[in-house]
């Protein structure tokens, strides 16, 4: 009880303190506050992960009713992920924000917002009361949009923040509908009411209720077609915030979905199919668009959508397993989804942090202007490479492990399925394989163009590696990426409690989770180790055999041409040109071209702009139509004060008159009914 109060008191205390602190002190105080909250919540989370359910109850207020807190294994897992990303992100942010030390008030504001996001996220994981949940959600949305608008002198940042704010409120709208619906029917704002209500009304009701929550959480998580805010918000935010947003803030959508799965009792099979469909589309669409992006952080943002798709596939097959009563399938699905949540939080935050390093060194994120950074920033390059391989799902890193579990789930589901599910499986597997291949195309492009070759642009300042303190948290993340890749058993054992939350406790009838996962993953880990040994052996062999051989340094083979310039290198655009042509129907690219011609040629130009076609049809066109509709009434807003006073009088008169004529109207309607 006391510890919860301390948890809430720390941010409040810091907010009071911040105006009296120097800017340098603000950062440290905020970071310390985050750390103490991490320790507090981590203490409970670790207990929860070992199977203990911790509950607190507060009397609450007249409006909310009693407020219960409940930390179960699922909350514990997400709290640990959130804490890890905030720990590394906060530490990274301390060094990252040094470049902005002159914007004193902005930094203070940012510190407050940072702490608020952390507290709100942790609260969302534990709160069991829908009104308090909505308030925390709103705090997260508001502070998130302020964090996105950190560089508010840039138009793009303001727009991204607004976009995020509006779409977040759509998400809140759907949440409210869901919560109010349940509260209206049961009279309680406690989450337990959702369970009782859906259990009492079997059939379609639970499904519709779930869909309501699904849309709300899908907007947050960035499922296609609710993803359009995400590719704006992530690039506009400062890099540590991008990492946190992509690493954990969108994951709270996944958490919400999982929480609703545990709460709502309905047809899990249909839920599973719905989630699977959305996930497959998100995964493919995300990566397909990511490839075409030339802004490094925007590219990563689209990859978040892709990875949310992969997580969703895990959750989807988990639900299907629940619906079928196939507990192995259910555990594989949920374990894969939850592990991929952690994995994505790790490699995506690492990617965002390293691209932050690139941004600070070069002041650009346009990958066509970059190149050859591996020689100037070798450590950043190495870290980016590790994360890039991990996100492509390639062994020996962590992405492979979770994708392997999801594949195992699919192939497990296959046995004894009927025709319909089989088609779903084969196309999902097809999608997952394509996602892997496309991610590889995308990250070979990103890494190859940004870090390899020669510099494509002459910068007028020296490009150098960021200080070691800024790299330190990144090494920590990389360490975990490798650790999960080569030693996944530990993490999966931790996952056994969260997974059992879904699969129920038929532990005595079925083989325990650890053993099942051990059977599946043990040999993969062994294979990974053998693979690492082979690589090491080949390296040693190569070293021994080439020790006496001559090494000559020469120019790159230029087909006889001896003076190639850096402009003749392959660009990101040309690297994906063949892909762009093949996938043209799904992509919308506008080209403006001015050819060079004539005897005395003047300058030519070639520009391509890339746009999200779903955004055009789902967001831009409806908004344009809505604007057109409202435009019809623009005569009302004619700028004349007299008219505005008249509107006021008309309105007041109407308000007074309605009750007067109300009886007449009722009479009239009765009269019509009688006829």
């Amino acid at each position, binding site marked *: 009880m006391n510890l919860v109060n301390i948890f809430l008191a720390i941010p409040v205390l810091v907010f009071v303190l911040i105006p009296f602190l120097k800017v340098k002190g603000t950062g440290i105080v905020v970071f310390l506050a985050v750390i103490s909250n991490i320790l507090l919540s981590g203490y409970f989370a670790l207990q929860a992960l070992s199977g203990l359910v911790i509950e607190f109850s507060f009397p609450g207020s007249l409006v909310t009713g009693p407020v219960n807190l409940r930390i179960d294994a699922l909350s514990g897992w997400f709290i640990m992920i959130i804490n890890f990303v905030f720990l590394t992100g906060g530490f990274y942010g301390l060094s990252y924000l040094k470049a902005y030390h002159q914007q004193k008030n902005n930094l203070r504001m940012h510190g407050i917002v940072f702490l608020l996001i952390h507290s709100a996220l942790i609260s969302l994981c534990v709160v069991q009361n829908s009104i308090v949940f909505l308030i925390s959600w709103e705090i997260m949305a508001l502070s998130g949009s302020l964090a996105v608008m950190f560089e508010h002198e840039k138009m793009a940042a303001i727009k991204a923040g607004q976009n995020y704010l509006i779409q977040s409120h759509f998400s809140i709208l759907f949440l409210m509908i869901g919560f109010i619906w349940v509260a209206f029917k049961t009279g309680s704002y406690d989450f337990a009411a959702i369970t009782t209500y859906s259990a009492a009304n079997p059939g379609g009701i639970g499904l519709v209720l779930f869909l309501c929550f699904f849309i709300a959480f899908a907007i947050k998580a960035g499922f296609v077609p609710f993803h359009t805010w995400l590719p704006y918000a992530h690039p506009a935010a400062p890099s540590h915030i991008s990492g946190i947003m992509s690493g954990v803030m969108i994951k709270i959508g996944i958490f919400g979905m999982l929480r609703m799965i545990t709460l709502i009792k309905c047809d899990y099979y249909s839920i599973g199919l719905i989630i699977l469909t959305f996930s497959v589309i998100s995964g493919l669409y995300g990566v397909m668009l990511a490839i075409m992006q030339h802004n490094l952080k925007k590219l990563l943002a689209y990859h978040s959508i892709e990875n949310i798709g992969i997580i969703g596939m895990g959750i989807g097959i988990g639900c299907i397993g629940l619906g079928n009563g196939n507990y192995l399938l259910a555990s594989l699905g949920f374990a894969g989804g939850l592990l991929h949540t952690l994995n994505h939080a790790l490699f995506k935050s690492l990617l965002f942090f390293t691209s932050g390093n690139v941004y600070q060194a070069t002041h650009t994120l346009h990958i066509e202007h970059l190149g050859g950074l591996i020689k100037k920033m070798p450590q950043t390059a190495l870290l980016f490479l590790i994360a890039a391989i991990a996100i492509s799902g390639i062994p020996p890193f962590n992405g492979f492990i979770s994708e392997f579990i999801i594949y195992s789930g699919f192939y497990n589901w296959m046995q004894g399925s009927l025709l319909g599910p089989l088609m779903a499986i084969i196309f999902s597997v097809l999608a997952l394989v394509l996602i892997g291949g496309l991610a590889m195309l995308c990250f070979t*492009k990103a890494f190859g163009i940004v870090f390899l070759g020669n510099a494509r642009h002459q910068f007028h300042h020296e490009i150098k590696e960021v200080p070691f303190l800024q790299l330190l948290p990144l090494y920590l993340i990389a360490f975990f990426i490798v650790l999960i890749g080569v030693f996944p058993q530990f993490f999966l054992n931790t996952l056994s409690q969260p997974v059992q939350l879904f699969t129920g406790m038929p532990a005595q009838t079925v083989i325990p989770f650890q053993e099942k996962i051990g059977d599946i993953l043990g040999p993969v880990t062994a294979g990974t180790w053998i693979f690492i040994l082979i690589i090491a052996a080949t390296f040693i062999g190569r070293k021994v055999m080439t020790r006496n051989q001559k090494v000559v340094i020469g*120019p790159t083979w230029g087909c006889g041409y001896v003076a190639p310039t850096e402009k003749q290198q392959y660009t990101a655009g040309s690297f994906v040109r063949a892909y762009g042509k093949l996938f043209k129907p799904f992509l919308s690219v506008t080209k403006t071209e001015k050819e060079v011609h004539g005897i005395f040629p003047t300058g030519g130009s070639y520009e391509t702009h890339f746009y999200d076609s779903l955004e055009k049809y789902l967001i831009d066109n409806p908004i344009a139509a809505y604007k057109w509709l409202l435009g019809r009434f623009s005569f009302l807003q004619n700028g004349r004060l007299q008219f505005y006073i008249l509107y006021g009088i008309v309105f007041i008169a109407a308000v007074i008159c309605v009750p007067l004529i109300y009886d007449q109207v009722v009479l009239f309607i009765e009269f019509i009914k009688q006829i």
Partner: protein
Amino acid sequence: MLSLILIIVAAAFFTGVILRVKSIASGRKGPGIFQPLKDVARLFKKGVVYSETTSFIFQIAPTIYFSSVVMAMLVVPFGQSKGFVSFNGDFIFFAYVLGLGKFFSIISAMDTGSSFEGMGASREALYSMFAEPAFFILMGSIALLTGFTSFQEMFAAFHIGSYISYALAILGTFVLMMVAMVENSRMPIDDPKTHLELTMVHEVMILDNSGFDLGLILTAGYLKFAIYGALVVNMFIGMFPYQYSIPMFFVIQLVLATGVGLIESFMARFRMSHNAQFIFVLTSVSLLIFFGVLLILGKFA
């Protein structure tokens, strides 16, 4: 373990046989069957030239590429004897381990800063992306048919129950061989003997590699051919006793090598811009296999 030895032996002659068939078909005397091995042995003894543009990526990439192929080789079984590593879902591991090698060979090509090699890298990334679904659906279909998910168990149980499975095996052979062609960059997707950098895929990626590293890449290529050949053999031998299956292994590998040689002698390479579509057609062929499996299992009823 047996598969390991067999694959290494097959790799030793596979590429040589292709070269020999091509030389006979074009009426030349041609090199001996073991010429590719001699080439590699020579390369292993030579010094290296590194481009000044390159970084450590370029130096470690061939090693990782080679290791990934060796690891993939350890997974492949032979009939009733398991591969060195064998577990449920090992074919996923197989494909993804090869993926690491591919990742490094692509970025090592981009490390040179040459536009030729960038072009090759771009093509390689695109083609391998399209080839992978075919492999996964093929293996998924066999997994569905047999109820197992490891290479050895799937192949062992492939032909129990119905003879139609042999028809599927033939289709599967086509898919696997075409995937092998893509992976090894041979005709009709890529022409290893072309002399123009613009028309190459794999060759252009390794333009700057030399000495020991080039030797590793070539060896990996020979092994890859034999690995896919071994997979094809596995589609047919099932649980045959060794006295039949081992000769069959060499006969099938020989037939495949001859076939590749003949194709390369009498066919032109596909248009580069149509390659991707062609490769994706493989996916539909493997979908056909999937429907075949559905038919056998009576799922349409």
